């Protein structure tokens, strides 16, 4: 129940219609947003392996000039990082529910 919010967010992001072909500027901004979110997730020590690989894929596509794919991958990485941040914050209290007492 609690986690449906980030999944919905993930879906919303991927459905957003790409108005026109992405260019380097779009890639740079999407990538830095994803990188910031990923750094925060890492600082909370809740980073996901899939975030790291999506970020790497974005960089690889970006370096290769395929900005469409790079922006999509960066957006996915950002969404994943945000979901792991949400998980870290909600788990600060939620873990107690499972504790054996």
């Amino acid at each position, binding site marked *: *129940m609690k*986690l449906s919010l980030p999944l919905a967010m993930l879906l919303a992001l991927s459905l957003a219609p790409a108005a026109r072909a992405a260019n380097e500027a779009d890639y740079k901004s999407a990538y830095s947003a994803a990188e910031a979110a990923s750094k925060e997730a*890492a600082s909370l*020590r*809740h*980073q*996901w*392996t*899939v975030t*790291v690989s999506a970020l790497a894929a974005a960089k690889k596509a970006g370096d290769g000039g395929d900005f469409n794919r790079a922006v999509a991958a960066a957006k996915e990485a950002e969404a*994943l990082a945000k*979901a*792991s941040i949400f*998980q870290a914050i909600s*788990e600060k209290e*939620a*873990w*107690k*529910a*499972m*504790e*054996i*007492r």
Partner: protein
Amino acid sequence: MKARSSILLGSLSAALVAFALTSARVVAADKIDPVADAKAFQNFFFQKFPTVKHEDFVNGPYSMNEDMKRQWQEKEEFPPYEFALDAGKEMFATPFKNGKTYADCFPNGGIGIRQNYPYFDEKEGKVVTLELALNRCREANGEAPYSYVKDEMASLTAYMAFTSRGKPMDIKIPDDPRALAAFENGKRYFYTRRGQMNFSCASCHVQSPGERIRAEILAPALGILNAMPIYRSEWSGMGTTSRRFVTCNSQTRAVPLDPQADEYRDVEYFLSYVANGLPISGPGARP
């Protein structure tokens, strides 16, 4: 449509009830009480698996499934960790370049002491695991540290575990707020969900021990570290507790911490303490 809304209503009220319950307990549970935690932890498993003999829990999946137990016993006739054990025994006795040996770093010459690790080091204010103590001993004697995850470190800990086989786990928590905090931090790590799979250690080892996870049977959390280090057929080699934590993390798609991160040391402290009284069964053989 009607059914869906009733489900929604049902889950909302359940959440409310759960919230009320936890908040009441949260207030009561602020005081960290390892003794009560250990008792509750052990009783949970003793009641959930009444037919399993208490000391059998340390055999992990093999205490949960007959077919697996038979395969294990067949392997134990001539166990695959035999080579690591001999290598560890030889290494343990080989003096460092400065002539000292591991025996000089450990109480009782390092023999039959594995059940007291990890311990809380009051000078350092942190939990110290057996692997950490071994590497510190090496560095103190001018030797390069070993990898915390496998090979030499696993052979050394295999031999030290072997010398403690059968002795009950005996972890102490000194009356020091930092030790209690480390215990609590380990407990929190154990119950915290992580990775894209959104699993915590408890999701598998408390909620569904004895169930299948593809080819393997999930081990109960009680006594799960008593068999460390383990020879896993999947790794076709030995692995220490840290290797198990690191690989478990990456399986749930959580980025692993470094092998001797504080969280890993604390969760090892927590899991070992709640298994006090259960025998050391390392080195172990696992799927």
